[in-house]
């Protein structure tokens, strides 16, 4: 229930920040060469000359009716821009997350089976590399190897699954490493616990012990990491989208900020805040599903 005040706070902060930040949307619209009269006229047309509180109430009443306004620069409705781009970001973030969970959890579980073994040490090394490399560097290396040298995949753009693989891997690479580490330590805790010993003692095969008894109980920290990362991916995939020319919402926000397109910035930040709040909510609900001790009344 804290979500509504949170979102209102976001709205106020974004509005005020943009008001005090340097740069002017009208000067961005007119380009390098203009005259003072045109600028004054446009400010008036866009109601930028009105008092801040009036602009704010006007904007907020629009938002409450589901109207995010039109972009100053492109004159297109913001909601339409978001509708075009967000599904693409969702697809990229979802694929990155899926890839990261499959690889990360698998590596983590296998590492925990024989701590200190060759697989554990290899996994640990790769995890450190994955966490250390910045995403844009990984992205460019992936393009270089798989697109330019081997020509297996297209370097950039949006289209079928072949366009998705490289960016999803670049975006997910950090998570694979992080998830592997978290899974490994959570699994080690659980595997040393009494009930696992009991499960083994009653003669269950090792696969069942690991998957049904141990992994299930190690899920809470894994879900936390997944939830946090997913929110981050939806809002923070800007670099990946830029490097792979992926037409998602991250690039949209950056372009809007570059051009001081106030309605576009406000609309997309507000929208992404809603998404973030929702993802957190889903994560909380997933806890309850994973751990019967967690209950929400």
């Amino acid at each position: 229930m804290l979500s509504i005040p949170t979102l209102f706070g976001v709205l106020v902060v974004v509005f005020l920040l943009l008001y005090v930040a340097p740069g002017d949307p009208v000067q961005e619209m007119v380009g390098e060469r203009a005259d003072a009269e045109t600028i004054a006229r446009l400010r008036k047309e866009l109601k930028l000359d009105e008092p801040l509180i009036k602009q704010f109430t006007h904007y907020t009443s629009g938002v409450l009716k589901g109207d995010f306004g039109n972009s100053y620069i492109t004159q297109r409705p913001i909601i339409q821009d978001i509708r075009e781009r967000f599904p693409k970001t969702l697809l990229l973030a979802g694929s990155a997350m899926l890839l990261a969970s499959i690889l990360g959890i698998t590596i983590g579980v296998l590492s925990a089976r024989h701590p200190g073994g060759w697989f554990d040490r290899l996994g640990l090394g790769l995890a450190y590399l994955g966490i250390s490399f910045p995403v844009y560097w990984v992205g460019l290396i992936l393009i270089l190897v798989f697109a330019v040298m081997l020509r297996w995949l297209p370097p950039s753009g949006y289209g079928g699954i072949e366009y998705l693989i490289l960016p999803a891997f670049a975006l997910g690479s950090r998570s694979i490493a992080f998830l592997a580490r978290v899974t490994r330590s959570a699994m080690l805790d659980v595997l040393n616990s009494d009930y696992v010993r009991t499960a083994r003692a009653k003669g269950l095969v090792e696969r069942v012990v690991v998957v049904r008894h141990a992994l299930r109980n190690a899920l809470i920290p894994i879900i936390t990491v997944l939830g946090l990362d997913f929110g981050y991916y939806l809002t923070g995939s800007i670099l990946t989208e830029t490097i792979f020319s992926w037409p998602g919402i991250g690039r949209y926000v950056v372009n809007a900020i570059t051009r001081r397109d106030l309605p576009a910035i406000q609309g997309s930040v507000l929208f992404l805040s809603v998404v973030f709040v929702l993802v957190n909510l889903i994560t909380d609900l997933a806890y309850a599903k994973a751990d019967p001790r967690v209950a929400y009344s």
Partner: protein
Amino acid sequence: MRRLLLLVAPAIIGCGGGDGGSAPARNTIIDSRDTYDPRSMDPALSTDVPTGRVVAYLFDGLTRFTPDARVVPGLAKSWEISPDGLTYTFHLRNGVKFHDGRPFAAKHVLGSFQRVLNPATKGGRGWPLYPIRGAEDYAAGKSGAAISGLAAPNDSTVIITLKEPLAIFPKLLAMPVASIVPDNPGSDFGQKPIGTGPWKFVEWRHDDYIKFAKNAEYFDGPPKTDSLMARIIPERSTATAEFESGNVDVLNVNEQESRTWEADPEKKKLLQSAAALRFWYVAMNVTRGPLRDVRVRQALNHAVNVPTMLQQVMGGRGAVAAGVIPPTLGGADTTRRGYTYDVAKAKQLLAQAGYANGIDLELWTANTDASPRIAQTIQANLAEAGIRVKLVSRDASSMREASRKGETDLALKEWWADYPDAENFLGPLLHSRNKGVGGNVSFWGNPQFDRLVDDARGEQDEARRSQLYTQADQIAFNEAPMLFLFFYKDLYAIQPWISGFTVPAVFSAQRWTDVTIQK
């Protein structure tokens, strides 16, 4: 981040293209130059480079630019100028059709110009049409429903009367904003444009690509290739990878990568360069502190080693500036030498101005592309002459606002010409009328300079006009309201299967009509 990219980028160039470039099966030309989504496809909103390019594909103006920066007839097949230089009579082409089949006529010219100037359009670029009598009043909402200087006596004639003689007017009409649109364009015209141009609109996937198909009925002959695609690729290293993979046909080579390309004999064959109408300079605000003194401004010009900077930072991509007129335009004095790099002389000039202990200045720079590196080089050079520079790095928007308000001592700027004429450099950058938002962020004003530029604007005789420009440029050079850096040189890589492409001098002047893919 940039440094890491630099490490990777040459590797991309080094590794690709192993198969020697076999022609692709596609019959679509693919361009990779746009780094961000166009604002719109509506000519009235063409205030940025990607929009201007798209508009030039889809529409025609009364005149148009050729890639080598000449102005030739467009929808007007010819025109006459009255002896007083005030009235232009344009004779329009007959039989031209818009992409939806409607015939083009004189009324569309009037309608299009009104639309650009109409405050409700919220385009923000009326100035190329302001020379028309009554246009500025109309844009200000002062003169009712008509523009007094526009008339269409019949379907194939347009008569335009100007406020004052303006010899460069046909060049202004070749700008994308002066393109002709049909009646009642509608509110989604920017998404579903209909023009008379060589290419028809097919599809726009925002932040991804725009597709065009050839207009088989184009009045100047249809394009030689079936379709055209403008891809939007924000990261230039990615564009390089796309080029190496053979997925795009033309690449704007990065400054930092130029040397790598030129060093490889195979790659070198693909390169094509041309002088661009782009000027790098540092505006000095002549109303602030020591910069009021011309000797200080000259000292700055002597203290910076421009030729070395050009080689080291820009990969040799440009020509040292001695004035503001690019050497390819009429009025440029190609015998004039730039300020010599002479630290002793700079110190001497500073001492004469009473600043023997040096001065402190702020240099503002945008934090994109080559700007930060150029700014750092200038800072290091100036330090040797006792000029202590504090760098202020901001995003382009904040910096532009600060310099327009007169809050910057020094501002590193790059100017892209809108039309190929010396006036497009002398006027916006230095005429006193354009102080601040008009483009003159040196806030310099010189009555003699203003008069020469104003006289040139009305002068129909090309040679005489060039003379006036040269004189004005000489005054600016002596008074040094800016640090003259260099005129940029474009360097493109073009796939071996592409023929008929020339690097355009003005960004909107390459319309791909003569370009073919060799099978």
